[in-house]
């Protein structure tokens, strides 16, 4: 299978200048590959650096060293050394990221929050909204909420809007940070179905999932993040 993600020897630490320049090592020697259609689940206790690795793959955290290779428009691009414009282009076309929390934009209705990534890549507004409706329905968001801004929704509803927004595009790489964390069984299984569909469509997925049942349902492989623990 084609490798969509190729990480080699990536390292990340934080230097806390406001705390007297304390250096907090996060991860070191991160190396793994993810193929198209494969779902890799990062495992390890809280604080092991799972979310940091996702953020490094998304280009949100900058690496101290190493490579984050992403197959973008037919070429392996190293996000660790890419220009901001290239990272933006990768995010538009290649990597989708579902964070734990929805960063809601004031006044924008839920349906448009979900449809926006598609519109941004050139899909017509009508078609994007139709697909957004389909996803919101599958994730059991009542229709009466679609026209309201999600900032007024409950935590679980916001998370499902967030998932719908993350799953609407056809990005070949998807990063999921606790997608089922605050969901009930019914909604969690809807998300598992969505993930399975993505895998069948050849999407490479890196996920953080604490629920072992769900992990077993979606994971092709797990990568133990504790092996990347950076010595303090």
């Amino acid at each position, binding site marked *: 299978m084609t490798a969509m993600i190729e990480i080699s020897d990536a390292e990340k630490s*934080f*230097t*806390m*200048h*406001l705390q007297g320049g304390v250096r907090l090592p996060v991860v070191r020697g991160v190396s793994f590959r993810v193929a198209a259609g494969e779902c890799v689940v990062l495992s390890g206790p809280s604080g092991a650096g799972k979310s940091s690795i996702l*953020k490094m793959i998304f*280009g*949100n*955290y*900058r690496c101290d060293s190493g490579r984050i290779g992403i197959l973008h428009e037919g070429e392996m691009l190293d996000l660790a050394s890419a220009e*901001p*414009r290239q*990272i*933006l282009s990768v995010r538009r076309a290649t990597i989708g990221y579902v964070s734990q929390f929805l960063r809601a*934009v*004031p*006044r*924008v209705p839920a349906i448009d929050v979900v449809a926006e990534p598609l519109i*941004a890549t050139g899909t017509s507004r009508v078609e994007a909204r139709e697909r957004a409706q389909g996803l919101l329905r599958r994730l059991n968001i009542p229709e009466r909420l679609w026209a309201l801004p999600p900032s007024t929704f409950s935590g679980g509803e916001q998370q499902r809007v967030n998932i719908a927004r993350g799953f609407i595009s056809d990005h070949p790489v998807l990063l999921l940070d606790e997608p089922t964390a605050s969901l009930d069984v019914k909604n969690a299984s809807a998300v598992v179905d969505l993930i399975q569909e993505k895998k069948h469509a050849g999407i490479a997925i890196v996920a953080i999932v604490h629920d072992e049942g769900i992990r077993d349902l979606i994971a092709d492989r797990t990568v133990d993040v504790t092996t990347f623990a950076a010595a303090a």
Partner: protein
Amino acid sequence: MVEAPDAPMHDQPLLVAEALCKNYGRVTACRDVSFSLYPGEVLAVVGESGSGKSTLLQLLSAQLAVTSGRVSYRMRDGVLRDLASLGEAGRRFLFRTDWGYVHQDPALGLRMAVSAGANVGERLMAVGWNHYGRIRQTASSWLERVEIDVARIDDAPRTYSGGMRQRLQIARNLVTEPRLVFMDEPTGGLDVSVQARLLDLMRNLVGELGLAAVVVTHDLAVARLLSHRVMVMKGGQVIETGLTDQVLDDPHEPYTQLLVSSILPP
């Protein structure tokens, strides 16, 4: 500096700053600033008052002469030209057509005693529009886009609220479909609720029109919502730059960390 327009436009920078410096006597307001801005890209310049960000905006928009360095702009013919070589007529023409400038104080960007319709229509008349009906029609549709009741088209902006004035200023700037907009603290001095509405509007317009923008702000929330990239300035220098979420979520420089840690939680 002339180069042939062979590559597609969006792969070529729209605005290029090379080693910009500005001194006032012995005081350095801006030191060695270089960057390229691409079509459709929004760059936020953040920093405290006195960090040189407003000076930088004036240098970029050719309102202030550089002490050394160069600002170049890719004109609609695809050629990148040194702004200093354009001459005043050329620079002022850019300002009426291909550029916008949104002031913090709308009174500086609007004609306060002239009706909203004429405020929006002025740029059209300046480029030779000579049909009242069409000018008014275009002004109306822009008022709608910035969510101003068209019934207020004949009222002067001095009768408008602060938020409306700012939205009118945006309409006045965007009516000629510029490719680059400079914004100086566009939400400064507005109530928080009014700010949110304005930011949302600007974000949509920038996206819909594919505008490039340089936004000077001390408000990191504005930078996060509007911009793709951030430059952090301190003492006239750029101390950190990168993708907006990189710089705000993973700040490297001590000063940036201080700025980020100073944001009150929402």
